[in-house]
């Protein structure tokens, strides 16, 4: 029995280490390429670490490119999108989880429908709709589009988190005299904190990565987000992989930081403790 336990522990840890290695290796490679001087890039391409490292790619990107601006634009767009989506998805997800009401079926069907059609289809009509409103080449326009795209999935996600919390909790609060909205705010929302964190993380990353609509809606350098900026960077400086990867590493930083901040919420159990306590 004891032997089997040890074997299972060893297998478990080995599997975890393997997952970590596979997850990190491409990122390690990105970092490696970004600090490899140009003259070594091709001669020492397959070496795990170059014989000489340098930060000239980073210095170039920071000093001679618009990258800092793209970076700020992406931060604004992704942050605003994540917060707005989470608020909208929390209320909508709560309604879908707790209420039965006329039209609920159709609302769910509509939200599912939005997950099915190719977003490429919307590029032209959205461009034609936003253009007269002055919302092309604007970060606001981008946020509106991203919020709408991310709300349906976030709502389903929040709904599943609410479904995991026993109804008895707010029923008890309401019998004690609280309104439903107060019970939702003061009892249910704090319990859903891991769910809210997960939703924020999902949406932020999705907005940070979006390429298609950013390319279509934004043409000015001033309003470019990181993906648009990086692609123009690529075309402008031919295929300078060192600089591109340096820019990539910098763009990874906020996404990773944000992610590391929220990931501890994912560790916590969602309802464990709440029901028992």
């Amino acid at each position, binding site marked *: 029995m004891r032997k089997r336990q040890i074997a299972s522990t060893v297998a478990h840890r080995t599997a975890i280490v393997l997952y970590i290695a596979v997850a990190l290796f*491409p990122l390690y490679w990105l970092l490696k390429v970004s600090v490899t001087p140009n003259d070594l890039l*091709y001669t020492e*391409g397959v070496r795990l670490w170059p014989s000489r490292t340098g930060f000239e790619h980073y210095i170039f990107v920071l000093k001679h490119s618009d990258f800092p601006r793209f970076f700020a634009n992406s931060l604004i767009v992704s942050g605003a999108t994540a917060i707005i989506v989470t608020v909208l998805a929390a209320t909508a997800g709560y309604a*879908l989880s707790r209420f039965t009401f006329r039209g609920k079926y159709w609302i769910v069907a509509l939200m599912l429908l939005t997950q*099915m059609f*190719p977003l490429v289809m919307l590029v*032209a009509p959205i461009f034609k709709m936003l253009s007269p409103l002055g919302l092309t080449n604007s970060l606001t326009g981008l946020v509106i589009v991203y919020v709408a795209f991310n*709300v349906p999935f976030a709502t389903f996600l929040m709904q599943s988190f609410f479904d995991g919390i026993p109804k008895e909790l707010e029923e008890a609060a309401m019998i004690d005299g609280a309104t439903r909205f107060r019970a939702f705010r003061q009892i249910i929302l704090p319990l859903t904190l891991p769910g809210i964190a*997960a939703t924020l993380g999902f949406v932020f990353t999705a907005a940070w990565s979006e390429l298609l609509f950013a390319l279509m809606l934004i043409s000015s350098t001033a309003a470019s987000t990181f993906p648009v900026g990086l692609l123009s960077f690529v075309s402008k400086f031919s295929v300078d992989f060192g600089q591109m990867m340096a820019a990539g590493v910098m763009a990874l930083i906020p996404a990773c930081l944000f992610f590391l901040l929220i990931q501890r919420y994912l560790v916590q159990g969602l309802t464990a403790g709440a029901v028992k306590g």
Partner: protein
Amino acid sequence: MSLVASSSRHISGQRPLLQRLAMASEPYLYVAPALILIVAVMLVPLVLGLSYAFRDVRLLNPFSGGFVGLDHFRVLASDVAFARALKNTLLWAGASVSLQFTFGLILALLLDRPFRGRAIAQALVFLPWAVPSFLSGLNWAWMFNPVVGPLPHWAFALGLTSAPTNLLSDPTMAMWGPIIANVWWGIPFFAITLLAALQAIPRDLYEAASIDGANAVQRFLSITLPFLAPTIAITVLLRTVWIANFADLIIVMTNGGPADRTQIVASYIFTQAFRRLDFGYASAIAVVLLVLLMTYSLLIVLLRQSLLRRA
């Protein structure tokens, strides 16, 4: 004081009309902001886009916009590139989702078990998901490149290939390049979602089952799986549709090449819309894709309902 008053009214069931009205409209108020936005930014452009499929809409042609009936669909029926893209989409979505789901579920189960350093391990394995999709595409294209990437040389050393060649330029195997990148990138999505669902399962159930003598496999099959089934169904449904439409990695890594071997329907639509600026034809292809995906989704929804009924 007011709290006590409203509670006694609640119990006696005699609420004033206004309050009852407020209660009846409550769910609508919760849903309204999300709903309005979805209708304005997704549904309205969708209908507009549907109309493009039957019109001659070319961005650079000011005289376009006229009604052409089913012309686009007639051209589409004999479009060889489209037929190939359909086949590629099946492989792309099928292989990506099943591999992401399998590895994601294993990872979720591994992380559901407490161990020292779990928080750090979890942060590290979920990291690929924080990588912007097109950046991971570039990164993997680089990894497959025999000049500077390590993968072709490793495959050669292991005897998998006869020479260190680029997977992405091999017509028979190229599709697996974006698929591998997609799997690497998408595993955390499934793992996070499934882990959240796993942790919502009451621990008491496992304890009770253990006391009754159920082994690990029995506990997995009779507690974990039934609890996860609805989450799995909806996640797989949404993800398959999403991945079938997900062209970023392919655009970045192969641009549909070599010789359209990695072109999926979504990237084909992208090509038509952005290279040829032919929104009409692109929309017609999108309509066909839409019909196929809706049929698929309907099947999954029916499956999920029958699963829920049994549970």
